[in-house]
């Protein structure tokens, strides 16, 4: 089977699409882009491909070794099994959901994934803002069940490549909503804007790659509301366009916390959610959402204040 990387072939399309969105922004939303931010995001993208080429060997080695222990054998001509491709794509997307969710809920993984979220803008250049340090996390482990099931690592890599290419176009504010049936099943610009938001209502929601159904299935779906402007980025915005700081800031912060923490808490700074602290001086996304709920009386899953959904009060009248 020839070597094939969907993302490499898609690069010219990425460039053309970013250019087209910039022209749209020029006439409709000049603030949607910021030259320094764009430069930083695109440099992130370039660096991530170099990092993957230099550091991806270990994961590949593990996959090839693991493939020897596969449960099912699709034969030497595994690539000719037409049905294996869509099946692999769907299962890889399910894997993506979980690796992505872990990327937001485990600080070790967040240290790498935060790179993708650190822009305060949301445009097609943000899609290319990919991490340089993914190889230093354990994200690849999530793909091992697929390898052990019998899917060849190359098939998984190609499906993952198409998954990544799909996710490019949803990083835009130029598209409000797709047709209803599409929004119901697929990840869309609207769903993914929610994912990049720092509004308490939207924190740690919509982890999907291609199919939004995973979020609906696992209880992390949140629809975008038209009455609440989205703020993009991270809870503690960088306030700097320094590339190296943008790449490594969370690693530096995490390692510093581990060094300073009492022994019994060190591992928690590695494995617990971002924002967790042993002395309660910081806030996790759950804590921020809870404070917001308490302050506003709103529930993130509904448009109404919590009190309005009280089943006892629902049909009653004020005393």
């Amino acid at each position: 089977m020839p070597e094939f990387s969907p993302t490499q072939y898609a690069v010219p399309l990425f460039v053309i699409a970013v250019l087209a969105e910039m022209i749209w922004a020029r006439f409709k939303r000049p603030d949607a882009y910021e030259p320094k931010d764009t430069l930083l995001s695109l440099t992130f993208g370039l660096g991530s491909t170099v990092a993957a080429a230099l550091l991806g060997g270990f994961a590949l080695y593990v996959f090839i070794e693991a493939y020897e222990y596969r449960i099912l054998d699709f034969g030497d001509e595994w690539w000719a099994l037409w049905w294996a491709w869509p099946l692999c794509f769907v299962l890889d997307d399910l894997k993506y959901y979980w690796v992505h969710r872990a990327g937001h809920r485990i600080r070790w993984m967040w240290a790498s994934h935060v790179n993708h979220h650190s822009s305060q803008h949301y445009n097609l250049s943000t899609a290319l803002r990919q991490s340089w340090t993914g190889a230093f996390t354990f994200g690849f482990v999530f793909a091992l069940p697929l390898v052990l099931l019998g899917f060849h690592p190359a098939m998984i890599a190609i499906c993952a490549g198409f998954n990544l290419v799909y996710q490019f176009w949803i990083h835009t504010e130029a598209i409000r909503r797709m047709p209803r049936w599409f929004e119901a099943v697929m990840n869309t610009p609207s769903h993914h804007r929610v994912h990049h938001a720092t509004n308490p209502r939207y924190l740690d929601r919509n982890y999907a790659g291609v199919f939004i159904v995973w979020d609906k299935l696992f209880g992390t779906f949140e629809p975008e509301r038209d009455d609440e402007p989205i703020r993009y980025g991270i809870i503690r915005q960088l306030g700097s366009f320094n590339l190296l700081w943008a790449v490594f800031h969370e690693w530096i912060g995490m390692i510093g916390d581990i060094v300073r923490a009492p022994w019994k808490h060190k591992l928690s700074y590695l494995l617990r959610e971002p924002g967790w602290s042993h002395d309660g001086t910081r806030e996790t996304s759950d804590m921020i959402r809870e404070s917001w709920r308490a302050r506003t009386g709103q529930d993130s899953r509904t448009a109404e204040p919590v009190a309005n959904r009280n089943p006892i009060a629902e049909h009653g009248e004020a005393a």
Partner: protein
Amino acid sequence: MDIPPLLLQTLGSLVAILVLAGLAALLKLGGASKLASDGDVRRAAGEVVDGFEAIECAAARDGAAALARDALGRIMLIKRHGNRFAGRILTPLARVRRHGDALEVDCGEKRFGKVLLALDDPASWQARIDAIGPA
């Protein structure tokens, strides 16, 4: 001469990146958001830290930065970052220096940088920042 494919691809991508970033500047994308009123500062402060309700604000005359105080006595430094805003609640690590009617505020975080604000009432804000103690 044989150029490794990865190097060739990297150089090609680098050229594309510089062209796109240059175009963003050429098309005058971005612009400079301003904190022109107390309302702007309050909104920005509430975005920096959800639930931060400023009861007193001071926007720099150029609209590029601001200070805000909430009922708990917390002081927030806000600065323009690109065409968005970023901020920090000041801690005992914060340092402030007076330059005429301007304050140079250092939140203590090197990469956030020092922020210069020309204010109408720099003395009172300087005193408040100097008085920040442990939470």
